[in-house]
C-alpha cells in the first residue's frame, strides 16, 4: 500500500463564535478536515456558516479557536497562493476588466510587462478576449464572474476558493460556467490543485466535486463526507447524480 499524500490544507478544530449582547452565537462547531489535490464542495443549509468557514480558510476572518494549516504553516492573513472568487463578483467599478484582473497580481514582485502578459493570458482563457478595456458595468453577470475567475487564476494559485460563485447567475449561464471551471481545473497547464467551493446547491456540488462535505444547520458540524467517484466529464443530467443529491439532501433536512 502506498503512503497517503500530504494534505495541502488542514482545517483543524475550527470553532467560530460571534459574541452578542447577552448570548453569543456559535456558528462553526469544531470543524476538522484535510484537503488534498481535489475538487471539494462544502454544502449546508443557508446561514450555517459555510461562507464564514471559507473566509477563515483564506485568512479573511479569524476563528475563535482552531487553525488552518497550508502546507503545515498556519494561515493568519490572505496568501498569494490562494485565489478567491466571490458570489457578488466584487469587481471594482472604476477599473477595466484588465485593471480588475491585474489587481490580484499587482502586489506580487513581478515586472509590469510580465503582469500584463499574465493578465492578458487569463482574460483570454476565460473567453473575454476583446473586453480588456470594458468596465464591469458594461458586462453581463456571466462575463463579470469570468472576470472574477480570471482575477483569481492570474495569481496562479495552488488553492482556489469559491463562495457560491454561480448563484448570482441565471441557470443557463451557470451551467456553462460550471463546465468551464471544471475543465480549467482539470487542464494540467494550470497549477491549481485544490478547489474548495461553498454552495447551497447540492445538485451543483455533486456534479462538480470529487468530495462533498455536508454541514448541519447552525451551529455547523460535519454530518457527512461523501466521495464522488464518477467519470469526468459528467453530464448534469446523469441519474446517479440525482441519487447522490437526494442522499445528501436527506442528511441536511
Amino acid at each position: 500500500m502506498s503512503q497517503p499524500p500530504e494534505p495541502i490544507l488542514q482545517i483543524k478544530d475550527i470553532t467560530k463564535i460571534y459574541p452578542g449582547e447577552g448570548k453569543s452565537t456559535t456558528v462553526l462547531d469544531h470543524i476538522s478536515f484535510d484537503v488534498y489535490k481535489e475538487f471539494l464542495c462544502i454544502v449546508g443549509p443557508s446561514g450555517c456558516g459555510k461562507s464564514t468557514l471559507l473566509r477563515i480558510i483564506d485568512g479573511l476572518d479569524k476563528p475563535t479557536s482552531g487553525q488552518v494549516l497550508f502546507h503545515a504553516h498556519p494561515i493568519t492573513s490572505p496568501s498569494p497562493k490562494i485565489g478567491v472568487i466571490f458570489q457578488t463578483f466584487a469587481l471594482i467599478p472604476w477599473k477595466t476588466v484588465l485593471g480588475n484582473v491585474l489587481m490580484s497580481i499587482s502586489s506580487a514582485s513581478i515586472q509590469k510587462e510580465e503582469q500584463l502578459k499574465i493578465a492578458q493570458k487569463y482574460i483570454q482563457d476565460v473567453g473575454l478576449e476583446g473586453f480588456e478595456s470594458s468596465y464591469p458595468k458594461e458586462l453581463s453577470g456571466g462575463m463579470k464572474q469570468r472576470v472574477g475567475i480570471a482575477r483569481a487564476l492570474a495569481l496562479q494559485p495552488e488553492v482556489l476558493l469559491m463562495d457560491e460563485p454561480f448563484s448570482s447567475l441565471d441557470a443557463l449561464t451557470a451551467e456553462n460556467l460550471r463546465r468551464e471551471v471544471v475543465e480549467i481545473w482539470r487542464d494540467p497547464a494550470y497549477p491549481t490543485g485544490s478547489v474548495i467551493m461553498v454552495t447551497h446547491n447540492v445538485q451543483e456540488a455533486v456534479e462538480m466535486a470529487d468530495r462533498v462535505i455536508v454541514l448541519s444547520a447552525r451551529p455547523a458540524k460535519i454530518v457527512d463526507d461523501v466521495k464522488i467517484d464518477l467519470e469526468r466529464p459528467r453530464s448534469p443530467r446523469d441519474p446517479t447524480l440525482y441519487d447522490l443529491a437526494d442522499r445528501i439532501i436527506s442528511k441536511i433536512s
Partner: protein
Amino acid sequence: MHVPRPSLRKRVASSLAGRTVSFLTKIFLSGIAAVAIVALMIELLTGGLTPNCQRNPLDPLCIPGYAVRTLTRMTIAYVFALAFALAYGIATAMSHRASHVLLPLLDIFQSVPVLGVVPVVFLIILGTGTGTTPPPELNQEVASIILIFTAMAWAPTFGVIAGINAIPTDIKEAAHAYGMRGTRYLRQIVLPAVFPELVWSSILAWGGGWYLIPVEEHLSFGQPPNQTQVDLPGIGRYIALAALKADLGLALFGLIVLVGIILAVDRLIWKPLGVRAEKYKYETVAAPRTTATRQSSVVAGVRRYEDRLVSPVLTFFKSERYYAARVLEITRLKRIRHITERLRFPERITRIPLWGRLLSYTIFIGLVILGLIVTIISRSQSIESGISLLATDVTAFELVVITVLSLSRLVIAYAIALSWTLGAGILIARSQRLSRLLVPIFDIGQSIPATALFPLVVILLVDPFKNSPYLGFTLNLASVLLILTGMQWYLLFNIVGAVNGVPNDILEATTAYRIRGRRFVKEILIPASFPAILIGSIQAWGGGWNALIVSEYIGPNANVPGLGSFLVQASTRNPALATVEIYASLLVMTATVLIINRLVWRRLLRKADRYKFEA
C-alpha cells in the same frame, strides 16, 4: 365607449387643488396654533425681558427669552417654507410642462447666496431709515422671517420633488388601475412618499436658518443720517452685541447656548422624526375607506414600496461589520443619503428644453428688476441715476477684479477643506477607535453655524491687529478661515458617507488580493469617494459664497477687497448708489455660482457614474 375626459380631468384637478389647499390650510392653522402657544410662552418667560433686557441686553438671564424669540421666528419661517415646498414641489412633479420652468428656476433660486439677499430684503421692507426713529419692530420681524424663509425653502422643495419622483411606476399604475385619483392619490401615495424626504430636507432647511440667525438680528445699513437699524431680540443679536463689545466670554457664552439649542432641536425633533421616517410608518395617512380588494392591493403595493426603499438601508447596516457606521447616527447617515438623492437634479436639469431654461432665466431676471423697482420706489430714487452712478463709480473692470479676488479666497479655502477632510474621512473609515472619538466632535462642529464664529474670529484675529502692519494679512486669514468653516463639513460628511458605503465584498476582495496601505487609499477609497466629493463640493461652494459675504467686511477700517465687502459697503456708501450696487453684486455672485456649477461640477458629475457601486 365615450369617456367624458375633459370633465373628469377638471374634476380631478379641482379636487386635487381643493385638497391641497385644505391640507396647506391645516398646516398653516397648526403653525398659527404653534405660534400662539409660543407667544404665550414668551409672555410667561419674558415678563422681565422688556424693561431689564433693554437696558442691559447682554444679561445672561435674558437668554431664555431671546431663545424663544429666535425659535419663534424660525418656526414661522419654517411653516411658510413647508407650505411653499409642498405647493411648488407638487406642482413641479405633477405637471411635466411646468417642471421645465419650475425646476431650473428653483436651481437659480438656490444658487443665490442667502446672505446677499439680507440687504435687499431689509431695504425693500424697511426702506431708508430716518436716522432717529428705528423702523417698527413688526416690519423688522417680517423682514427677518422672510429672510429665514429664503434660507429654508429650497431644500424641502427639492425633497418633495425627489419624494414624488421616487414613487415607483408600478405603484402609480396600481393606484391608477384601482381608481385612486385626486385627493386620495395625494393623501395615500404622494404624502407618504414625500414625508421621509421632507424630514431629511427639513434638517438641511433648519441648518440654513440657523446660519442666518447670527447675522440678521443686529444690523445697520447706510450712514448715520440715513441709517436703517435692525435690532431684534434673539440669540443672534446677543452674539453680535458681545462681539461689538469685544467681550470674548459673553460671545462664547452666546455661541454655546446657540449650539445647545441647535443640538436640542436636532435631538428632540429631527432625530425622532428621522427614525419614524426610517420605519415608514404611514399611520398619519388614514386607511382608505374602500372595498376590501382595492384596499389590500394598494396597501400591499405600498408595503412593497416600503420594503424597496428601506431594504438598501437595512442591507447597509447589516453589511457594516468592519466600519463604525453605528457611531454615525441614523440621522447623519440619512442626511448624507438625502443629499446624495439630490444628485439626480443636475442631470434632470440638463435635459430641460431650451425654452424652459430661457423662460426660467427671464422670470428670475424679471423678479430681480421688480425687486429693484420696488426698492428704488421705496427709497424715492430714479433708476437711471442709480445705473449711471454705478457706471461712473464702478467700472466693469473693478467688478471683475473683486470677483477674482473673492474667487481666489474661495479656492484657497476649498483646497484646505478638501485636503483635511479627505485625510480625516480616510482615517475615520479605517480606524474604529478614531471614528468613535472624532465623529461626535465633528457632529457638534458642523452644527455650529459658520456665521456664529464670525465674532470670535473678529475678537481673536482682527481686534488685536487693528493698528499693526499685519492687519491686511490677518484680515485675509480671517476671511479664508471663515469661508473654510462654511465649506468643510459638507465635504467631510459626504466623504465619510462614501467611504463607509464601500461594499463589503469589495473590501474582502482587496484584503484577499492584499491591496493595502497607500494603494488601498489610492485605488479604492479615493475613487470610491469621488462622486461624494463632487456633491460635497457643490454644497461647499454654496456655503463658501455665503460665508464670503460676511467674511470680507468687518468694519470701515478693517476689510479686504472682494465681492462680499463690495456688497456690504454698497449699503454704507453713497445711498443713491447703494440699491443698484447691491443688486449688481448679487447678480454677479449668482451668475458666478451658476457658471461654476455648470462648467466644473456638473461636467464632472456626468463622469462620476463609473465610480458608483452597483446596487
